[in-house]
């Protein structure tokens, strides 16, 4: 069993309530930080921990915090990104639903470090009921003096609120999220200025993912150096992985970074192997936008070394033979899966979610969806594969925000590793979806 720091108490009855959470050591990091540490000391521990943003980009959190501008007399804000929308990702939902106080505790400790007196949790609108759970927990925290004026009798005061979004993937991009939090369309902003200088309402702002903020609590408690000892190399600590698709045990797993991918897929502790005794075909390891890898490349790197669940190992080989840890949305596909059809669902998603600001993304995602539809209709030609490749290559790097890359990468990877599937359909003029049989009668109830 690996070490668990974030969801080790998820099965404790009543852990969503303040009393039970406190009885299991809850809010200790707030007590320690506010009473015995300066804000800069908290930031220093986060730096030492090597914690990297858990939303997908993996940017060092301590460094992000240290970029925060601190002009005199201007408020600073911490905004929690709970707009979890990357297909295949549902870990933040699990954490907030099961242990809402873990996020609130992290928000208080982190807000203290950043000198923010007003913070927001921006949660995707579809998670209505999770927002309710958070609001209930926040009300409890206010009533017990963990939020509000002079927390624990110190000079530090913090107000914390939840805002629900309106259903837009793009609001997971931090500047789009800030636009949305200001009551506008979720159009990403041109950077610079970065939110650390001009964020919410033009003030210095840090935007962090739910899991990142929750991880600050154990870091403060054990110290950054101890935390950095968990994991391998620059992949420190634990990570929540959302496992879904054709596996026996879909769900959220907290792993110590460094678990071999093969162990993660096949061991009973985690995914429990492929459903219905089928063989593994491919894995999307870090949410829909990261490159899909076929069995041989997801289990082992191109050099033949076992692939590990770390930022570095998954990225080994670049995009030619590697992928990314991303958000930890781990989608597993069995041998019957049509890669073309799966790609179609991804591309349809990105077309639907493109905000429409930049033409390469707005138009390109639509064209890609149309071409993929031709494959599903059996009307595609062999040259359509080249056309698809051409379009994706003209989106990447040419848009304001990374949605362009997110839409292009899965297309490129599917063609790179599974070109034969596209060509077969184009040649035979027939799309047979063997993965799409009446699955429902065969799966667990």
């Amino acid at each position, binding site marked *: 069993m690996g070490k668990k720091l974030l969801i080790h108490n998820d099965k404790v009855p009543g852990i969503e309530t303040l009393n039970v959470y406190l009885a299991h050591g809850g809010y200790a990091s707030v007590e320690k930080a506010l009473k015995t540490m300066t804000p800069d000391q908290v930031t220093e521990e986060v730096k030492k921990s090597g914690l990297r943003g858990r939303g997908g980009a993996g940017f060092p959190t301590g460094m992000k915090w240290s970029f925060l501008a601190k002009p005199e007399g201007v408020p600073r804000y911490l905004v929690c990104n709970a707009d979890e929308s990357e297909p295949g990702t549902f870990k933040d939902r699990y954490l907030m639903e099961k242990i809402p106080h873990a996020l609130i505790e992290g928000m208080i400790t982190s807000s203290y470090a950043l000198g923010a007196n007003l913070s927001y949790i921006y949660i995707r609108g579809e998670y209505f009921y999770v927002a309710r759970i958070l609001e209930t927990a926040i009300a409890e925290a206010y009533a017990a003096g963990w939020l509000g004026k002079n927390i624990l009798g110190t000079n530090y005061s913090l107000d914390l609120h939840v*805002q629900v979004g309106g*259903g*837009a993937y793009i609001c997971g991009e931090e500047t789009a999220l800030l636009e949305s939090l200001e009551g506008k369309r979720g159009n990403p902003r041109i950077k610079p200025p970065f939110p650390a200088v001009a964020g919410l309402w033009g003030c210095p702002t840090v935007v962090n993912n739910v899991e990142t903020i929750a991880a600050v609590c154990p870091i403060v408690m054990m110290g950054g150096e101890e935390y950095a000892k968990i994991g391998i190399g620059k992949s420190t600590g634990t990570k929540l992985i959302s496992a879904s698709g054709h596996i026996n045990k879909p769900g959220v797993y907290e792993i110590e970074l460094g678990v071999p991918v093969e162990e993660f897929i096949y061991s009973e502790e985690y995914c429990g192997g492929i459903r219905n005794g089928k063989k593994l075909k491919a894995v999307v390891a870090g949410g829909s936008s990261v490159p899909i890898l076929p069995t041989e490349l997801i289990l082992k790197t191109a050099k033949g070394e076992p692939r590990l669940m770390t930022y570095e190992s998954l990225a080994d080989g670049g995009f030619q033979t590697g992928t990314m840890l991303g958000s930890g949305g781990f989608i597993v596909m069995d041998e019957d899966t049509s890669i073309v059809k799966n790609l179609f669902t991804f591309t349809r998603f990105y077309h639907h979610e493109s905000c429409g600001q930049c033409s390469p993304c707005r138009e390109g995602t639509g064209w890609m969806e149309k071409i993929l539809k031709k494959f599903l209709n059996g009307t595609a030609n062999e040259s359509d594969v080249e056309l698809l490749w051409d379009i994706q290559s003209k989106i990447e790097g040419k848009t304001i925000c990374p949605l362009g890359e997110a839409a292009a990468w899965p297309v490129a990877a599917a063609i790179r590793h599974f070109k034969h599937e596209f060509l077969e359909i184009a040649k035979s003029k027939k799309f047979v979806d063997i993965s799409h049989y009446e699955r429902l009668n065969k799966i667990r109830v």
Partner: protein
Amino acid sequence: MGSQVHGTQEFNKAKRAEIKFSDEAMKIVQTIISHYPQGKQKSALLPVLHVAQAEFGGWLSPEVMDYVASILNIKPIEVFEVASFYTMYNLKPVGKCVLEVCQTSSCWLSGAEDIVKYIEKKLSIKVGETTKDGMFTLKVAECLGSCGTAPMLQCGASFHENLTYEKVDKILDEYKTVGKQRSYTDLDYKNTL
């Protein structure tokens, strides 16, 4: 959304007079507005639109959007540009229960298409349509964060997961009995459905 576009001014005036939050909803709206600093009340727009949608029949008519604009002291166009951007706001009338079946990768891998077909057949409607009795609208949605419990559908504020045909039957029957979906203003998240 100028009133000229949506019929005569007289008609809109009459309609607008009927649009007013209940006291309970108004209280929620005021609480939401209080979460933001003075002068930043526009930030309350997204959550307030959810309240408005729950209050006024599940969709946002031009008149409702104008009303929300007046409450937040912003221009009607600022409301419309937001309402038309986010997928959760309905700009056309919908049924009492809006069924949104997730169709993205993990749900598709687990049989979401079968669920959609099944509901279409059962309710005799296609995706995007509403049943004749006004009870159900069927939609498809992009990833709703339920990949580990796929396939799934969302109805109002409720998630229904690990769907099977039997489960769909049961859910539809229950909604028919209750007569409405749970919405943003229903504060008790522990309710079934």
